[in-house]
């Protein structure tokens, strides 16, 4: 029988043309449908309101305190929801896989997560406002029945942390959906082997399971980060007039009802691309570190 020779896993693979050919459809797709349409974005970021070439837009990025603050705010929200969403999403995924809940609940949570992962924007904001807003039914329930006035006590849904809590509605499901296959991949024989070597449950998790899962967890978190970073509609609906995250600022420049500076908007979007690239580098480094022991 013909034996196709596969190179040894750790041998230095000459990156010959044939290998790159294998990924060429993907890169072709990316060029055709991501790069070409975005060229206008890059081009436009160098053009000022009179239509001439300028570097002023990029200069404004760094000099305008409103824009710098907007980036900071966006990064903060994205990091907060990536971490918070990552942790609780992982716990949820754990509960229906390794955690041993009944099969139907697993099915229900996975399909629910599919829907909830994209439930955002005005409907999501409305759902939470109708729950915990000043006239939300939970707020009123507490006020009328238990005499607890949330807003008197200082609670306010329309803040950074309120927005973070709402973002979780699509961050948790995203984490669940990506982590369930990874948790499924924890082989039983690893647990049994650890058990037989005398490891406690805690040791199994910290020494065996978590290190195996860490690359997947990091990968999911960067996804959650990107997901929150690019989100716009929910923040606009809830705190549009108060929290100026960068996507809202970009929207104001590019799509606003009032004449603005689209070039600046494009430059801000390019800024987001750069931040994403930097985050990716950080994440890749973490990945490499976490995967080291797997070799």
């Amino acid at each position: 029988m013909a034996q196709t020779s596969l190179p040894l896993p750790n041998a230095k693979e000459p990156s010959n043309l044939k290998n790159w050919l294998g990924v060429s459809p993907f890169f072709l797709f990316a060029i055709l449908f991501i790069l070409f349409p975005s060229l206008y974005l890059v081009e436009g970021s160098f053009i000022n309101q009179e239509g001439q070439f300028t570097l002023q837009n990029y200069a404004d990025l760094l000099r305008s305190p409103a824009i710098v603050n907007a980036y900071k705010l966006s990064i903060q929200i994205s990091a907060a929801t990536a971490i918070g969403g990552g942790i609780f999403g992982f716990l949820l995924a754990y509960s229906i896989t390794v955690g041993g809940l009944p099969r139907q609940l697993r099915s229900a949570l996975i399909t629910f997560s599919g829907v909830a992962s994209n439930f955002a924007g005005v409907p999501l904001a409305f759902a939470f406002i109708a729950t915990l807003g000043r006239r939300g039914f939970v707020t009123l329930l507490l006020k009328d029945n238990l005499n607890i006035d949330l807003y008197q006590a200082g609670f306010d849904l329309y803040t950074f942390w309120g927005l973070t809590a709402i973002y979780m509605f699509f961050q948790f499901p995203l984490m669940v959906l990506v982590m369930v296959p990874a948790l499924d991949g924890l082989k039983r024989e690893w647990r049994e082997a650890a058990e037989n070597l005398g490891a406690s449950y805690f040791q199994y998790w910290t020494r065996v399971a978590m290190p195996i899962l860490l690359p997947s967890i990091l990968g999911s978190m960067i996804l959650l980060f990107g997901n929150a970073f690019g989100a716009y509609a929910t923040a606009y609906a809830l705190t549009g007039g108060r929290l100026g995250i960068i996507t809202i600022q970009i929207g104001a420049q590019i799509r606003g009802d009032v004449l603005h500076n689209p070039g600046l908007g494009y430059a801000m979007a390019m800024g987001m691309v750069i931040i994403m690239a930097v985050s990716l580098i950080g994440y890749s480094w973490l990945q490499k570190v976490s995967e080291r022991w797997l070799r």
Partner: protein
Amino acid sequence: MKTRKSLFTLFSLLLLASLALAACGPAATEAPPAATEPPAATEAPATAAPATEAPAADPMADLIAAAQAEGMLTTIALPHDWCNYGEAIETFKTKYGLEVNELNPDAGSGDEIEAIKANKDNPGPQAPDVIDVGFAFGPSSKAEGLIQPYKVSTWDSIPADAKDAEGYWYGDYYGVLSFLVNTDVQPEVPQDWADLLDPKYNGQVALSGDPRASNQAIQSVFAASLANGGSLDDAQPGLDYFAQLNSAGNLVPLIANNGLVATGETAVRITWDYNALAAIDSFEGNPAAQVVIPASGRFAGVYVQAISAYAPHPNAAKLWMEFLYSDEGQTIWMKGYCHPIREQDMRDRGVIPADLLAKLPDVTGAVFPTVAQLDAAKALITANWDAAVGANIQAAP
């Protein structure tokens, strides 16, 4: 495995079926234009009958025929319950037998301009033929060469300060900023801007957009400034007013919509009077609500129509304009509580039905800013809004 495979086949067949349905759908709706052409042909002689209209009938008949040859009109940013556009579009469709392709009803003026620019070379149905944009966008899109001139037959009855002399853009309707109040939640209805500062409106007042981006919101701030000692040349008092409203805790940072008014979350919504009145109609008494045109600070916002310079269906576009600026079209807008731009002319000729006249809100004393004043106010408000309402909030320290 076998059942799964057959299920998969079934699913794929369903998918193909729905695609086929979808592809056939538009073909089905294209039949009507052919069917209704005979009535259109008989319309020409009908309009030619009155002797005084005979000279106008011929170019109209030509225009109608040319538009029908194009078969389609592409509009953008026309929500159905904004100034009763829903009825306008339906009437236009049945009257002339044209298909109307409606792009993004939620688009802002900036989106409409972007859409024209992006579709410069596109003869397809993604290119908007006509746009309805904020006042300041008229001159700017003319300067960018994005629109083409056309003077409707009723051109002369449009007020001179609401149109471009060369016919590139022309005002279509206006409204005044008002308060929509949910009286179930807040029975004490404010009568003026100053009333909103009262502690009883704590956590109840909201704008209908983000002043950094939304025309309606920016002009709300501008309107507040008129009531607060400012003028059409000075919008700073408006910013001060909202800063005060915000620090008093009366201003909620939500973008108000009718659902939120109904739940009572934004019991007082600052919006155009026509939107507020249409909202009350749609509430049907639940919740009970009122519209108040503030006693001072009556600020009129004008929107303008224009035809895209790259319109794939220029004749349909012109026919649409003729329709909108005819008495019929202007009356449809009036049914949506908007003040059509030819209102004065129509009042003088007495062609407005009395019941409609009664329903139109009383806006005496409303002031109309010029483009220069709008631009100056916009620049001021967008630059300083963040600082005024403390929008530079960081996360928890």
